C-alpha cells in the first residue's frame, strides 16, 4: 500500500511538473505572440490562429480604463449564422496596462467572422476577419545545421509545424550571418523542410535562425517568432585556384623584371661580386729573371721555371742529382722564398739550408739532355760509390725524402701510384734503413716531412755506402715536358736480376691511401 501511494504521488508530481513546464512554456510563447501582434496588427481586437480549429483574440486597455473582465463582452458571428459570445480573461501587462483575452476552440474557416467587443454595453471594438488569414504559428522546431561536404555551404533542416492540409502552403525565411556579426542574409523557401546555404566563407562560424509564415494564397497570417540561433563552422577552404594562379603570374612577372634589371646591370654586378684579382705573374717573372740572372742560369732549368713555383699542385718531392762536371761552387746565398716553398714542408731548418747551399752549386749546361748522357756514361763505367766523381767534395747531392710521422706505417700509407714523383733507390740495405735516406718516397697525403741529405753532411767523403748499384729515375726537363727514365747504377746486365718498379709521374696530391709496395730490393 505504501509503495502504491508513493508511486501515485510520484506520477502526480511528474505530471504536475510536466504540465507546469508546458504551462510555463506556453505562457512564454503566448507572451511572445502578444508582443508580435501588438507590433504587427493595428486593428482591435488582435486575433490569431495557432492551429486548425482555434482562435485567440485580445485587446489592451490603458491603466485608467482598466476594469474587471466582467465589464467586457465579446460577441462573434459567422456569416449566415447566429451570434455567439466568448468568455473573457484578463492578464496584467507592462506599464500598468491590462490584456483581455478571448479564445475560441472551434472555428470555421473560409467564411467571414464578425467580432464585436462591448464594455458596459458600449461597443469599443468591431472587426470582420477570415480566420484562415490570421495564422500565427510556432517557430519551426529542431533547426539543424550540417555540412554538405562542399566548401562554403551549409545545409539547414528543420521540422515544419504539424498542421494538416497546410504543408504545401508554408513559407520559411532563413536568416544566416557570421557569428558575431549583425549583418546577414535572408533566404526564403516555400513548402520545404531544408535549405542549402551557399556562398559562405570557408572555415567560418555561422549562426542561422528561421521563421515560418503561410504563403497567403489559401491561408495567410503573420511571421512567426525566430528560432534560437544555431551555430556551425563551415569547412576549411583550399586554395582558391584563382588566387593561386594570380600569385604565380605575379611572381613570374616579378622574376622577369628582376632578371631584366640584373641583365642590364650585369657588368656592374660582376665587377662587384667577382672582382678581377690581379695576378702577380708579370711581377714574378721579373723576380725570376732577376734570380736567374743572379744565379747565372738561363730560364730553362727545372728549378727555375716560373710555372714550377706557381703551380697549385702539391710540391713534389724531388731528387736532384748534380751534374757530372760542375764548376766552382757558387757562394752560398739564400734561395728566393719561392724556391724554398717548392721543396715542400721541412721540419729541419738545417737541412733546408743545406739544400739551399746545394742549389747554389747547381750548374746547368745549355744542353738539356746531358744529365741523361752523363748518367748513362756512369752506368757503363761504374765507379766505387765513394770514389765517384759524383761525390766530389764540391758536389752537392740533395736527396729529399718525405717521412711520415709513424715509423712502421709508412709503407701502408702511401699509394705507390699516386706519388707525384717517385725516385726509387735501392741498396743492399733493408727497406727500413732505406727509408731514412734514398729509399722510396713515402709521403703521406699532404703531411710529408722532407728530410734531406746532402754530401755536405759527409765532408770527409764518408758518404754512406749505398752499394755498388742502385736504381734511380732520371728526370730530364726539356722545358716542354719532363722525361723520366729509370736508371740503374749497375751494369746493364745486372738490371735483369732485379725488378724495377716504375711509377707513373703524377703531379697530384694523393686522394686516398693505399698500401704501398716496399722499396725495390736490388740484388747485386
Amino acid at each position, binding site marked *: 500500500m505504501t509503495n502504491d501511494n508513493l508511486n501515485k504521488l510520484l506520477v502526480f508530481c511528474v505530471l504536475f511538473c510536466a504540465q507546469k513546464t508546458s504551462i510555463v512554456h506556453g505562457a512564454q510563447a503566448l507572451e511572445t505572440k502578444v508582443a508580435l501582434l501588438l507590433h504587427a496588427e493595428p486593428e482591435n481586437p488582435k486575433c490569431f490562429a495557432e492551429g*486548425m*480549429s482555434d482562435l485567440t483574440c485580445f485587446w489592451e486597455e490603458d491603466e485608467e480604463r482598466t476594469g474587471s473582465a466582467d465589464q467586457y463582452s465579446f460577441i462573434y458571428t*459567422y*456569416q*449566415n449564422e447566429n451570434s455567439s459570445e466568448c468568455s473573457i480573461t484578463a492578464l496584467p501587462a507592462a506599464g500598468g496596462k491590462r490584456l483581455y483575452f478571448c479564445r475560441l476552440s*472551434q*472555428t*470555421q*474557416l*473560409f*467564411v467571414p467572422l464578425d467580432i464585436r467587443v462591448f464594455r458596459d454595453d458600449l461597443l469599443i471594438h468591431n472587426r470582420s476577419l*477570415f480566420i*484562415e488569414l490570421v495564422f500565427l504559428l510556432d517557430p519551426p522546431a529542431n533547426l539543424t545545421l550540417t555540412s554538405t561536404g562542399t566548401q562554403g555551404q551549409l545545409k539547414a533542416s528543420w521540422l515544419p509545424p504539424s498542421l*494538416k*492540409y497546410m504543408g*504545401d*502552403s508554408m513559407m520559411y525565411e532563413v536568416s544566416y550571418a557570421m557569428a558575431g556579426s549583425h549583418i546577414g542574409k535572408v533566404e526564403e523557401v516555400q513548402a520545404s523542410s531544408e535549405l542549402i546555404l551557399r556562398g559562405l566563407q570557408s572555415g567560418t562560424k555561422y549562426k542561422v535562425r528561421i521563421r515560418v509564415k503561410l504563403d497567403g*494564397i*489559401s491561408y495567410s497570417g503573420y511571421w512567426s517568432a525566430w528560432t534560437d540561433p544555431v551555430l556551425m563552422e563551415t569547412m576549411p577552404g583550399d586554395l582558391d585556384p584563382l588566387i593561386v594562379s594570380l600569385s604565380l603570374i605575379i611572381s613570374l612577372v616579378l622574376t622577369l623584371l628582376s632578371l631584366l634589371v640584373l641583365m642590364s646591370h650585369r657588368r656592374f654586378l660582376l665587377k662587384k661580386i667577382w672582382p678581377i684579382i690581379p695576378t702577380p705573374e708579370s711581377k714574378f717573372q721579373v723576380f725570376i729573371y732577376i734570380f736567374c740572372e743572379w744565379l747565372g742560369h738561363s730560364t730553362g732549368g727545372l728549378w727555375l721555371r716560373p710555372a714550377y713555383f706557381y703551380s697549385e699542385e702539391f710540391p713534389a718531392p724531388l731528387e736532384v742529382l748534380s751534374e757530372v762536371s760542375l764548376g766552382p761552387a757558387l757562394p752560398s746565398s739564400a734561395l728566393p722564398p719561392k724556391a724554398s716553398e717548392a721543396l715542400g714542408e721541412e721540419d729541419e731548418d738545417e737541412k733546408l739550408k743545406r739544400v739551399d747551399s746545394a742549389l747554389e752549386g747547381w750548374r746547368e749546361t745549355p744542353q738539356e739532355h746531358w744529365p741523361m748522357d752523363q748518367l748513362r756514361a756512369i752506368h757503363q763505367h761504374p765507379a766505387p760509390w765513394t770514389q765517384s766523381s759524383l761525390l766530389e767534395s764540391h758536389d752537392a747531392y740533395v736527396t729529399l725524402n718525405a717521412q711520415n710521422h709513424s715509423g712502421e706505417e709508412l709503407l701502408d700509407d702511401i699509394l705507390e701510384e699516386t706519388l707525384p714523383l717517385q725516385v726509387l733507390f735501392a741498396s743492399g740495405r733493408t727497406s727500413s734503413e732505406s727509408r731514412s735516406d734514398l729509399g722510396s718516397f713515402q709521403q703521406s697525403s699532404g703531411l710529408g716531412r722532407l728530410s734531406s741529405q746532402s754530401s755536405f753532411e759527409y765532408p770527409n767523403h764518408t758518404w754512406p755506402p749505398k752499394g755498388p748499384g742502385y736504381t734511380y729515375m732520371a728526370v730530364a726537363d726539356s722545358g716542354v715536358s719532363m722525361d723520366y727514365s729509370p736508371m740503374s747504377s749497375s751494369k746493364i746486365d745486372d738490371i735483369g736480376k732485379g725488378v724495377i718498379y716504375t711509377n707513373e709521374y703524377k703531379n697530384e696530391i694523393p686522394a686516398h691511401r693505399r698500401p704501398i709496395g716496399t722499396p725495390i730490393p736490388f740484388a747485386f
Partner: protein
Amino acid sequence: MSSISGLVAVLLTVLQWAGRGLPSPVRPICDPRVLDRFIMEARDTETALRGCKAGCGVTGTFVVPLTNVDFVVLETKDTEEQALEVQSGLFLFGQALGAVRESVSRAAVKSLIDNNKSNIHSLGQVLRSLHIKDLSLSPVPAVGDSATRKVSSLSELLRVHTNFLRGKVRLLLTNAPACQQNST
C-alpha cells in the same frame, strides 16, 4: 489462304481495339499551383470589380454554395461527400457567372467573368483527372438548400467564389486519394 486469313484476323483485332477509343489514362493533376492560379485570378477579379459602381449593372440574386469549413466536421466526411459538395458548388457558380455575363455591358468586366468561367471548367477537368466524376455541367439534386444561400451583388458573388475555391475545392484536391498515392 490460311496465312492471309490469319493476317486479316490480326488486323481486325487491332482495329477493333483502337476503335473502342480507349482513352489514354489521364495523369492526376495534383500540383497545388494549378488551383492556386485559379484562386489568385478569382481574387483579382473580386478586387477589380469591388469598386464597380452600381454593381457593374448587375442585378438579381444568385444561388451560391456555402463556403465554411470546420475541420472537425471535415474529418468525419469522406471524399465522395466532399466531392459532391465541390461539384455542386462549381455548378452553381457556373450558372451565376453566366447570368452575370449576360447582364454586364462593359467588355473588361465580361473578360474577367469569362476567365473565371473558364477556370471553373478547367477545375472540372482537374477533378476528372483525380477520378472524381465531373458533375459541374449537370444539376446536383442531392444538394439541399441548407448547403446554399443567396447573394444579391456581384462583389458578394465573387467573394464567395474565391472563398469556395480557397477552402472546399482546395481541401478536396489535397485529400484526393489519387494525389495521396502519388505522394507516398
